[in-house]
C-alpha cells in the first residue's frame, strides 16, 4: 500500500511539473509576450525596458527555472492588468468556484444514484424508460444553454430567482443545476448499467437466497460495488466540472475563477491565465489522486500490487 501511494505521489509530481512546463511554454508560443503586453505604439526603448524588467531577455530555460522557483515559494507572477500578484487574485476567487463545483456535484449525485438504482431495479418499466429518456436529454444539452433556459423560466418569466451574482442559496440554485445536469444524466446512466450487471452476480443471488430484505441486498451488497466505477468517473469528470465553470460562471456572472480567466484572456493577462490553469489543473490532479487512493477503501480486492493497475 505504501509503495503504491509513493508511486502515485511521484506520478502526480511528474504530471504537475509537465503541466507547469506546458502552460509556461504556451505563453511563449506566440513569440514575444512583451509585444502583446504593451500598446501597439510603444517605442523600442520602452519594449526593451519592459523586456529587461520582466526578465524576458533571459534564455527560455532560465525564465522557466525562475518561474518554477517562484511557484514553489507561492509566487506565480504579477497580473499585467490588475498589477497585483496573480496568486492573490486566484485565491480570492477560488472559494466561489469551489462552492459552485461542489454544489453541482452534490446535486448530480443526490439525484442520479437513486435514479439509476430505481431504473435498474425496475428495469423495463415506465420509470426506467422515462428516467433514461430524461437522462438522454440531460447529456445532450449544452450546460450553458440550460443555464440560459433556466434564467428565461425562473428569472424572466416567473421572477423567482436572481439572474446573476453570488449570495444566498437562491443565487446558487440555477448555476449548480445547469452545471450539474449533464453529470447527473451521465451518472444515472452509469449507475443503472453497473447495477444491472451487479444484480446478476452470484453474491447478490446468495444474499437474496439468505432471505435478506431487498433494501439491504441493494443498498449494502450491490451498491457498494456499483460505487467503484462511479468514483472513477467522478474523478475524471471533475475536469469537466472545472472547465464547465468557465462557461457557466459567465452565464450567471458568478464571481469565480472561470469568469476571471475569461476576462484575463480578453485582457491578454497571460500570467493570470497561467495561474488559473495551473491551480485548476492542480486541483484536478489532486482529486484524481484521492480517487485512486479511495479504491482501496471501496474494493478490498485491490491490494495495490506492484503491477499496472491503471484506472
Amino acid at each position, binding site marked *: 500500500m505504501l509503495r503504491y501511494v509513493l508511486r502515485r505521489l511521484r506520478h502526480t509530481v511528474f504530471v504537475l511539473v509537465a503541466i507547469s512546463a506546458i502552460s509556461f511554454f504556451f505563453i511563449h508560443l506566440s513569440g514575444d509576450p512583451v509585444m502583446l503586453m504593451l500598446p501597439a505604439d510603444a517605442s523600442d526603448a520602452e519594449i526593451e525596458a519592459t523586456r529587461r524588467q520582466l526578465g524576458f531577455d533571459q534564455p527560455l530555460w532560465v525564465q522557466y527555472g525562475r518561474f518554477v522557483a517562484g511557484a514553489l515559494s507561492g509566487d506565480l507572477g504579477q497580473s499585467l492588468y490588475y498589477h497585483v500578484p496573480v496568486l492573490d487574485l486566484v485565491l480570492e476567487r477560488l472559494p466561489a468556484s469551489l462552492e459552485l463545483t461542489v454544489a453541482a456535484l452534490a446535486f448530480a449525485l443526490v439525484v442520479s444514484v437513486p435514479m439509476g438504482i430505481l431504473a435498474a431495479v425496475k428495469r423495463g418499466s415506465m420509470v426506467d424508460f422515462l428516467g433514461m429518456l430524461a437522462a438522454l436529454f440531460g*447529456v*445532450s*444539452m449544452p450546460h450553458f444553454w440550460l443555464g440560459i433556459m433556466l434564467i428565461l423560466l425562473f428569472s424572466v418569466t416567473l421572477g423567482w430567482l436572481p439572474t446573476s451574482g453570488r449570495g444566498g442559496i437562491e443565487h446558487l440554485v440555477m448555476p449548480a443545476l445547469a452545471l450539474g445536469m449533464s453529470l447527473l444524466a451521465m451518472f444515472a446512466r452509469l449507475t443503472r448499467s453497473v447495477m444491472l450487471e451487479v444484480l446478476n452476480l452470484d453474491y447478490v443471488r446468495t444474499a437474496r437466497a439468505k432471505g435478506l430484505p431487498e433494501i439491504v441486498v441493494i443498498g449494502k451488497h450491490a451498491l457498494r460495488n456499483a460505487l467503484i466505477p462511479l468514483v472513477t468517473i467522478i474523478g475524471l469528470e471533475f475536469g469537466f466540472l472545472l472547465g464547465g465553470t468557465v*462557461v457557466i460562471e459567465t452565464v450567471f456572472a458568478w464571481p469565480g475563477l472561470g469568469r476571471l480567466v475569461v476576462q484575463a*484572456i480578453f485582457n491578454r493577462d497571460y500570467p493570470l491565465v497561467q495561474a488559473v490553469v495551473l491551480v485548476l489543473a492542480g486541483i484536478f490532479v489532486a482529486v484524481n489522486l484521492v480517487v485512486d487512493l479511495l479504491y482501496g477503501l471501496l474494493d478490498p480486492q485491490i491490494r495495490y500490487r506492484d503491477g499496472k493497475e491503471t484506472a
Partner: protein
Amino acid sequence: MTAADDDLPLAAPRRAAPPLLRALTALGAELRRHPSALAGGAILLAIVLTAACFPLLWPVDPLAQSLLERLQPPAWQEGGGWAHPLGTDNLGRDVLARILHGSRVSLVIAGSAVLVAAVAGTVLGLLAGYHGGRLETAVMRMADIFLAYPFMLLTISVIAVLGTSIANLVLVLGLSDWVIYARTMRASVLSLREKEFVQAARAIGTTDGRIIRRHILPNALSPILVLATVRMASIIIWESGLSFLGMGPPPPTPTWGRILAEGRSYITDAWWLVTLPGIAIMLTILSINLLGDGLRDALDPRVRNSIR
C-alpha cells in the same frame, strides 16, 4: 478507458472482400437491430444533409441586416411572418439562416477535430501497442499528462495565445482529445498481438506493415468508431461553448454559440434568440448520442446483454 480490453467483437478475418469493408457491412447488419440507433442515424443524416445543401433550400444571407425588421418573432407568433420563419435578431438578421449556417460551422469544426484526434490517437496507440518499448513508454507518459490537463482549460489557454480561427480551433480541439483514442487503440492492439491469427501471420513471415493493415486495424477499429461518435457530441458542445465565450470562429461567422451569446442581451424581449439555437444543438447531440449508444451496444458484446 479499457473499453475493449480483451474480448473484441470480430474473429480472424476470412478471405475475399477487404477486411475493412466486411467489418462495416457486419456493423450495418448489427445496427439494424437497434431502432433507436437507426433513428439517431437518420436524424443526424438529415442534419448533415441540411447543413450541406441549405443554400438551395433557404438562400437567405445570414449577415444581411435590416434594422426595420429587428427582433421579429417567429412566424407562428403574433407580429412574425414567413419572410423570417424563425424571426430576426437585434440587427434584423434572419435567425433561420444563421442557425443553418451555424450547423455547417459546428459540424465542419467538430468533424475535422474528431478526425485529427482519431487519426493521431490511432496511429500513436497502434505504434505504442505494436512496438512497445521506449516508444510505448513515451506515448503513454504523454497521454498521462494530457489526461491530467483538464481538456477545456487546455483549449482555452491555447486559444488565448494563438487567437481564434477555425484552423486553430480544429487543431486545438483535435490535439487535446487524441489520448482517449490512443489508450483504446493500444489496449486493443496489445490483446490482438497475442491472438493466434496474428501469431500465425507472423510465423509465415508476413511483414509488420501487412499484419497491421490486414489483421490488427480491421479488428481494432470498431471501438475507435464508437469513441469518435461519442467524442463528436462532446466537441460540438464544447465548440458552441467556446463560441459563446467569444473564443470560437472570429466574427461575423454565425455560430450556434455566438447567436446564443448575442441573444442573451435580449432575453426579456426575444425568447427565440436564446431558445432556438440551443434546440438545434440539442437535436444534433441527441441524434449523435442515440447513434453512439446503438453503436456501442452493437459492437461491445459485454454491454450487449446488460443494456436494454
